[in-house]
């Protein structure tokens, strides 16, 4: 070996140390590169004065107004970036259910401008999403003869889900003339949208016997506080005055449904539940003196939440599974 080549010879140890130093420098450079994009929001904060929402599909609400009312304020539009500027603390409820846009406008009675209501039209993207936010905020039972299958009335409000839309008509007072105008506007909206083609098939799986009228709901995310347990249909039942919740969630595959059922089972066991004797492939857990049952059948997770006893829980779960099996058989 020549003297020149000997000068630049490095030992394996030195070579590895060199690589180590280079890797460390590269990691630091990468870290700096990443962090520079994560500003403290305070640094870039702007004042909380709403900016105009980005252009989006416009719904001309004023065109739906009956003769007895007139616009009381200009229309406003909000997208996912600006929804908090309108409803702030409740925005996350809509985000978790697939919110797309909100259009609002106030209308007042022509002959009494002190009586006004505000119409909120939430575009939730799909009928399932619209039903979810409708059911999560439901006050009381459904309205017989309402403008849609999913509608209810309160003294100062009208609330309904139709197609991909969720509507709220919130009155300044519990006034009959005002609510009559709100009803008329809601009906016109529904007629303009046309037939509701909602396919919320899981709802049909809850047996009618013992079910509380108008209690079926769709929880978009983290049902029963279980992280990731999403798109869960629930229904309330009454057994000797004791409320019990049944639930059904559909997954892409039977394997995914089985995994989801195990996640639910493990959640209750982790929080102190005690497994009880149960039929094969069904988990029965005693937790805080109430019974949880969860199982998977085909692509579905079926469960009963906070039942008073094992027999009640298993009986209700079995009725849902039977209904599901009948539905599957009908299709085949």
């Amino acid at each position, binding site marked *: 070996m020549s003297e020149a080549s000997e000068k630049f010879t490095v030992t394996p140890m030195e070579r590895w140390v060199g690589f180590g130093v280079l890797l460390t420098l590269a990691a630091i450079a990468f870290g700096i590169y990443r962090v520079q994009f994560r500003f*403290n929001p*305070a640094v870039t904060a702007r004042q909380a004065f709403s900016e105009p929402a980005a252009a989006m599909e416009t719904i001309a609400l004023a065109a739906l107004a009956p003769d007895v009312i007139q616009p009381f304020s200009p229309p406003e539009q909000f997208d996912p970036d600006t929804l908090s500027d309108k409803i702030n603390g*409740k925005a996350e409820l809509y985000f978790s259910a697939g919110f797309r846009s909100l259009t609002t406008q106030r209308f007042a009675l022509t002959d009494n401008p002190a009586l006004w209501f505000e119409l909120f039209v939430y575009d939730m993207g799909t009928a399932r999403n619209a039903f979810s936010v409708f059911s999560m905020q439901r006050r009381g039972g459904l309205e017989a003869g309402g403008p849609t299958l999913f509608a209810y009335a309160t003294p100062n409000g009208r609330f309904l889900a139709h197609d991909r839309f969720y509507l709220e008509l919130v*009155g300044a007072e519990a006034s009959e003339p005002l609510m009559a105008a709100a009803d008329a506007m809601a009906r016109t909206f529904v007629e303009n949208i046309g037939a509701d083609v909602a396919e919320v098939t899981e709802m049909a799986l809850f047996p009618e016997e013992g079910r509380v009228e108008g209690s079926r709901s769709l929880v978009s995310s983290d049902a029963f506080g279980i992280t990731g347990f999403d798109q869960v249909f629930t229904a309330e039942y009454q057994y000797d005055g004791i409320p019990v919740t049944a639930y059904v969630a559909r997954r892409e595959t039977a394997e995914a449904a089985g995994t989801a059922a195990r996640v639910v089972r493990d959640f209750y066991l982790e929080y102190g539940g005690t497994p009880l004797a149960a039929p094969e492939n069904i988990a029965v857990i005693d937790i805080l003196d109430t019974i949880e049952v969860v199982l998977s059948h085909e692509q579905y997770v079926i469960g009963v939440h906070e039942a008073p006893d094992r027999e009640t829980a298993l009986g209700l779960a079995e009725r849902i599974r039977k209904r599901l099996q009948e539905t599957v058989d009908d299709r085949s």
Partner: protein
Amino acid sequence: MTDLNRREFIHRSVKAGLVSAGALGAGWWLHDTRPPALEPLPQSLPGIPDFSGALVEGPAMAIAKGTDRMDMADRALEALGGIRRFVSPGHRVVIKVNAAFASPPAICATSHPDLVTAVVTACRAAGASDVVVTDNPINDPASCFRLTGIGPAAEAAGGRVVLPTADQFSRVTLSGARLIRDWPVLIGPLADADCLIGLAPLKDHHRSGASMTIKNWYGLLGGRRNVFHQDIHTIITELAALVRPTLVILDAVTAMIHNGPTGGSISDLTRTNTLVAGVDQLAVDAMGAELLGRDLSQLPHLRQSADAGLGVLDYHTLNPVAVP
């Protein structure tokens, strides 16, 4: 490998030095000493003045029962020793209302105009030279104050509505805080005030579990404050440290028990026929939680505030005065 000779050592050292100097020089040359562009705001202030000090001794909390907010407020204030315990002639009073939404008073998502009338009137009667009623609402401020009825009520009673404008915000850093750091706060109306009173409705809240007197200070924050919803209990705890009011009044005559904070229906409300006034906002909120049917596990910010020494969680120890 051969040992380095002196020449080689100096040669390599010079090269390493040049590389280091080049890197440092490039860093210096590329370094941008200017901060990111900000909204034009006044310089940071140390924080909001502490309005809780120098109070005349007296009861810490009063609980009035009834349905007439104006009457209940009068009786609760009297039970605390009278409005003159808090407001002296010539004082400048700031009343922080909840005017968050441009919604009607009937749905109780905002401070009730009757309560605003009662408190502004009482302050004026005590000789206050100026009674400012303010908030930084979520919706358009002018619409919020008008449609909630707060603006007309305040002005009719002798108050002065101050809508938020950019020049009234200053950047504030709360010592030791994780979230309130160099954050714009509506501090202008408070800068030379003698007395700060908070008027909050009792409400359910989708994120925080409840919105009461401490959460009401959220309305002093500017900027993109909705980012704080990701850590809602920490921000409420920090607000309890940031804002030390003279007096707070929690309106639970009709509490919003569902679908908060916006509500939307009269059927979201339940009558508890209670109004709580006190000098310890944590104690007042602890009672509010009871009225709302929430336990401490659902409202971690109450425990966090207590652990931080920001008030009394067991409000019974304050011997609240019951006003029948």
